[in-house]
């Protein structure tokens, strides 16, 4: 920038630079302060919190956490969330990829219609059909059941999974599976031995895209689960807030515990999380 007003340009450049970096720092503070406040408060007693909300914890006191685990049913909540998320996501990956394989690779009469069917599934805001779904689940005996939750979640995540997988498989060269066929592989062997290893990278994206919203969901358990022993963690934390509403130390410990698993995973896999959760909204 060697124009006559080079100095001004440079000056403006540094101004923008400072402004933009400042925005990032303010954002980082905005993200971290509430979370640090939560973690810090989880080590303090409620009486201490009520007299001075903003002090640092004087010692590493785990008694709030003890309460969360002994009185709060958190072990069972975590287990239920894990089981539901794991099985729903597994179903989505296995059946979503196999359906996508068939749609991407075989030319059959109903191909276009089935593709449109999944497209419609993608556009249906499933939350809004909660009442008919509730009655349907009641008739099927799937209320108060983890299996019921798993099936509904798997169905909800399926269309997006079929789309992501189909797009990916279409981009793979067809010679790969033809070569296997010539070597005498059966159709399921072509899928299992040739296709599955190739779609591993996109499986991670589909897995994250499906699993995180399931783990974080609150609405479906709220409607479908009444039995405490089958509640998920997000439902459990709201029950805990109802029972221990006045014990702030315990509330913060409960929130910290509920947030911890995903935050730890995120610290390790943030790139994958970002890619997975923005799949569909960004390309590549």
């Amino acid at each position, binding site marked *: 920038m060697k124009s006559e007003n080079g100095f001004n340009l440079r000056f403006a450049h540094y101004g923008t630079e400072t402004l933009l970096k400042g925005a990032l720092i303010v954002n980082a503070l905005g993200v971290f302060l509430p979370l640090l406040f939560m973690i810090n408060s989880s080590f303090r007693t409620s009486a201490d919190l009520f007299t001075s*909300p903003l002090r640092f914890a004087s010692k590493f006191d785990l008694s709030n956490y003890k309460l969360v685990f002994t009185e709060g049913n958190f072990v069972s909540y975590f287990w239920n969330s894990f089981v539901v998320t794991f099985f729903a996501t597994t179903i989505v990956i296995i059946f979503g990829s196999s359906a996508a394989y068939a749609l991407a690779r075989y030319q059959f009469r109903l191909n276009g219609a089935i593709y449109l069917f999944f497209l419609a599934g993608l556009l249906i*805001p499933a939350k809004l059909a909660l009442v*008919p779904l509730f009655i349907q689940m009641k008739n099927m005996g799937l209320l108060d059941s983890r299996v019921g939750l798993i099936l509904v979640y798997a169905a909800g995540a399926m269309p997006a999974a079929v789309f992501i997988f189909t797009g990916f498989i279409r981009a793979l060269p067809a010679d790969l599976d033809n070569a296997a066929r010539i070597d005498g592989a059966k159709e399921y062997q072509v899928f299992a031995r040739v296709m599955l290893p190739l779609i591993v990278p996109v499986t991670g994206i589909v897995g994250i895209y499906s699993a995180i919203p399931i783990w974080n969901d609150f609405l479906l358990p709220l409607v479908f689960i009444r039995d405490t022993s089958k509640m998920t963690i997000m439902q459990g934390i709201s029950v805990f807030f109802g029972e221990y509403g006045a014990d702030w130390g315990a509330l913060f410990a409960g929130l910290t515990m509920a947030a911890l698993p995903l935050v730890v995973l995120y610290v390790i896999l943030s790139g994958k999380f970002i890619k997975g959760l923005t799949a569909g909204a960004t390309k590549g």
Partner: protein
Amino acid sequence: MKKYSINAYQKPWIFLFITPAFILTFTFTLVPALTLLSYSLFSWESFKRIDFVGISNFERLMQFPFRQDFTLAFVNNVKVFITLFLVQTSVGLLLAYAIYRLKRGKKFFQAIVFLPVILSLIIVAFIWKLIFDPLFGPISAVAMQLDLPWLNQPWLGQPGLALFTLIFIGFWRWVGFPAIVFLAGMNSINDEFLEAARIDGASEGQIFRKIIFPLMAPSFTIIAVLTFIGAFEWFELPYVIGGVTGQPGGSTTTMALLFYRLAFGTVDSATVDVGISSAIGVILFIFVGIGAALGSYYLRKREIQQ
């Protein structure tokens, strides 16, 4: 890419590959969506279907007492959409550009900006409910210590203020998403464009306004569609903070809350009307469905163009 024409031997395999995904989606997504429409045309006693009543549920929704609730909720949803969209896209764009311009630490700041997005709305809502607590919360403590009366307010307890505090919390949770979408858009801009503009003597502001900003149009569409859907299905945040009746004084009620409390009732009253609830569901459905369809139509068109 070439699809094979199939032979008789392959048919059962195709059937086997597709059926599980098809049945699941059909049973738990499509069937409830279709029955929702029929439910809105019947009268109900609790969860028991009584008579076919045509569109009378929709008519009753437009009369006392439902009309007031519905209008209030609808206006709130519109406020949520407009405010969230404006704030999210402007701050999101700023953060995206700030990260885009960084030479080092891109990954690091990207991870920080996106962190709240992975947290469950339930957790986020409860954290902020405690933070905004007027008696024991840290915000009122700071306000007292620094003597800032404007900060020392019942942010969640005042009808005129509560909805915007809720929108702020929603913004805190979600702004990382548009930021990352915009950043991905910026990263896909060909560097040669920018280089050429720089050589021609364009200032940074000009480059941003004339090149980067117009190229962000598809990202704006995606964010608008997603914010639209999210705003009209707004449930968890107001549910946790304002309760199912949208406290204080119904000021944080939304259509999803209205829909929920007409179907499943509230703790203190048993005014359940599945017919009206389904009618609201159908209206929301059409609204959100049209939004999503327009969005994906636009995106597919874009993909063809590229």
